C-alpha cells in the first residue's frame, strides 16, 4: 500500500516537474549561437542579471518587454565577442547596480556579505562549545565542589 502511494507520488512529482520545465523554456527567444560556449555564458548571464522592471526576477525568467530587449542585447554582445564583465558593465552603466544579483561588496551592500559570515562564526562557536566544552563540564563541577569543601 505504502509503496503504491510512494510510487504515485513520485510519478505526480515527475509529471509536474516536466510541466514546470516546459514553462521555463517557454519564456525567452531562441537564439542561434555560433558556439555552445556562448550559449552557456548566455544562460549564466541571464540567470545572474536582474530584470530592471521587476522586483525579484532574473532576465531569464522575466517575460517583460525590457527583459526580452536585454536578452537580445546580451546575445548580440556575446556574438560580438565581448566578455561577461563588459556585458555587466554595459548594463550597470544604464540600469545601475540594481541589475546585479551579486551586489558589489561596498557601502550598504557590504552588510549583505558580512552578516552571513558573522552568523556562520556564531554557529561554529556554538557547535564547538556544545561538542568540546560539554565534556569538560564534569571537571568544572568537581572543581566547584572542591571549592565548597
Amino acid at each position, binding site marked *: 500500500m505504502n509503496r503504491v502511494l510512494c510510487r504515485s507520488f513520485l510519478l505526480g512529482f515527475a509529471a509536474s516537474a516536466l510541466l514546470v520545465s516546459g514553462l521555463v523554456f517557454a519564456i525567452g527567444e531562441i537564439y542561434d549561437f555560433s558556439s555552445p560556449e556562448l550559449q552557456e555564458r548566455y544562460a549564466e548571464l541571464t540567470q545572474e542579471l536582474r530584470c*530592471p*522592471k521587476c*522586483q525579484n526576477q532574473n532576465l531569464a525568467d522575466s517575460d517583460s*518587454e*525590457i527583459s526580452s*530587449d*536585454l536578452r537580445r*542585447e546580451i546575445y548580440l554582445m556575446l556574438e560580438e565577442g565581448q566578455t561577461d564583465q563588459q556585458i555587466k558593465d554595459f548594463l*550597470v*552603466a*544604464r*540600469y*545601475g*547596480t*540594481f541589475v546585479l544579483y551579486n551586489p558589489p561588496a561596498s557601502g*550598504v551592500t557590504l*552588510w549583505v556579505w558580512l*552578516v552571513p559570515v558573522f552568523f556562520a562564526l556564531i554557529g561554529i562557536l556554538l557547535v564547538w562549545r556544545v561538542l568540546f566544552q560539554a565534556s569538560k*563540564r564534569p571537571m*568544572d563541577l568537581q572543581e*566547584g565542589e572542591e571549592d565548597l569543601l
Partner: protein
Amino acid sequence: MTPEASKKFLVFAPLAVFILLSVFFFGALKLRETRAVDELTSALINRPFPEFRLQGLDQVLHDQTELQGQVTLVNVWASWCPSCRYEHPFLSELVEAGVPLVGLNYKDTPDEALAWLDFFGDIYDYHIQDRDGRLGLDLGVYGAPETFIVDSQGVIRYKRVGVVDERVWEGEMKDVYLQYGGHIDE
C-alpha cells in the same frame, strides 16, 4: 566566567539577537523605499545624453546635439502607455509656462503615435522615434513614461521614472530645472 554566570548571560542572547535583527530589518525596509528607485535612476545622472541619430515623427533626422543650448525635458512616451495620457495635461501646463519639451516616442508605430497626438494634442517641440528601443536602452529606460532633464550642455541632470505631475514637479524636478538655468514664464 563560571557556568552559572554564562547561563544567565545566555538567557538574554535570544533577546539580543531579536533586537539586532529588528534594527537590521527595519533599516532595510526604510532603505528599500528609496534605494531601489535611486539605484535604478542614478546610473545616468551627470552623464551626457547618449549619442543617437534617429528619424523623428516629422521625417527629419535628429541627434543629441539638438538637445544642447537650453535646459530641456525629454519625455519618453508611447501610444500604448496609459500613464502617458494621465501626465499629458500637466506636461501641457509646463509647455505653456515655456518649458522646452522633446518627445521620445518609444517602441511605437508612427501611425499610432500620430493618431495619439492628433487626439490628445501635440505639445512637443519634436519627437524622436525609437522604434526598436535601442536609444531607450542606452537611456536605461524600462517603461514609459520616463522624463529626463537635460541641461544646456546636453548632460542628463535628472531622471523621473513614472508620471510627472504637480507633486513630482514641485517636489524636486522644478528645483533641478531651475538650478541648471531652466526658464519658467511667470
